[in-house]
């Protein structure tokens, strides 16, 4: 029990960060982390004892997030970027950095889900390729190729946003 607390608790801030980066809505993200923690507590005895707690938790969180994002996509619900970009900032942005931030977030949103998770896990969470592969249950080679595609796509999307030239796919889609 104390072992569980000691191993899980320090990871909650980074789980929140990954959830927020994926879902982009702070309330949804924290609900997701809560679900993840509840499952982790419930399945603590089922995990591989020699396994890495961080990888195990990220995998639970990721699977929950994917399920939720797919449900959301199926139902056509859409979260307007305008409502959330600001909420992700701890400090109020200056106008220019705010726009830059918004471009970054829109580009991330426009990435295919499987590229976005690889990019976030490697770049933001600093996980190794092997750990990322384990979390996403894909081969390391696939992590590498998705990472490369994700990075180039980000540059392309952000160029598009800066030049105000529509990229191949629209940056901002509004359903409503």
């Amino acid at each position, binding site marked *: *029990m104390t072992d569980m607390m000691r191993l899980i608790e320090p990871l*909650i801030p980074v789980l929140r960060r990954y959830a927020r980066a994926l879902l982009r809505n702070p*309330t949804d993200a924290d*609900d997701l982390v*809560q679900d993840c923690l*509840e499952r982790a507590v419930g399945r603590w005895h089922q995990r591989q004892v020699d396994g890495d707690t961080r990888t195990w938790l990220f995998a639970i969180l990721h699977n929950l997030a994917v399920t939720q994002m797919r*449900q959301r996509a199926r139902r056509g619900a859409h979260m307007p970027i305008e409502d959330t970009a600001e909420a992700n900032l701890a400090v109020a942005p200056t106008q220019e950095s705010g726009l830059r931030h918004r471009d970054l977030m829109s580009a991330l949103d426009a990435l295919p889900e499987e590229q976005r998770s690889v990019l976030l896990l490697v770049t933001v969470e600093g996980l190794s390729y092997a750990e990322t592969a384990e979390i996403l249950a894909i081969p390391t080679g696939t992590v*590498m190729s998705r990472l490369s595609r994700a*990075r180039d796509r980000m540059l392309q999307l952000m160029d598009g946003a800066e030049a105000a030239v529509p990229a191949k796919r629209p940056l901002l889609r509004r359903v409503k």
Partner: protein
Amino acid sequence: MTMRPISDDDLQRLLDERLDAARRREVETYLNDHPEARARVDRLVALGEEMRAAFAPIAAEPVPAQLNLSRIVEARRRPQRPVWQAMAAGLLLLLGGAGGWGLRDVVSSAPAGIEALAQAASMNYAVYAPDHTRPVELAAADRDELAGWFSARLKRPVGVPDLSSSGYHLMGGRLVATQQGPAGLLMYDDGHGARFVMLMRPMSVPGDAPMQTHISATSNGYAWAQDGLGYSLVGAADPVVLHPLANDIRRATAKKI
């Protein structure tokens, strides 16, 4: 001996600082000779820094109470079935008379809009809240399944509000029939036998409707609509208890969808 050709994997590894020193030197040499590749790598380094900077504040935020691990562990330990059975017999007797009479009263008119929603909620409260064999069809443990079920049948995303911070625990829920089609019914209890239900169904008109109070012989309720989804909270509890709870739920669901 010639150098191994530089691959894209090498460039990715350079960005992620996962090259050994010897290979790193080789890659740097290659980049010095290939300005186009160098430009791409430079931009990708900047992108990585920008992403880390953008998300860093989130990990520095204090962890909200909702994610307090001790609380989550504690919540799991709490017994799922509270000691309310003793009260149930008395409650049933009461509802047999008053409940039936109350229902006759409510059913006689044919209201619409929020009124109809409130009425459906009161009826379902009268039927399911006193049931001690199967008050809910899906237990709280199947929260995700419950949300998925409701969302599928109501044809829009429906969340299952967590009211544990207000001292109420989700028992579970079921799908119920109303004049206007399927509705999701959630049931909560306070651990001392006091239950209330929340009914949710799409309204025929989109948008919001202000909160209305409805009081019948057997229950008190609050109903409102938010973004085209109608909510009605019904319980035997005093309006002093129910009203703030309704406000909590409205606040919680406002951000959800």
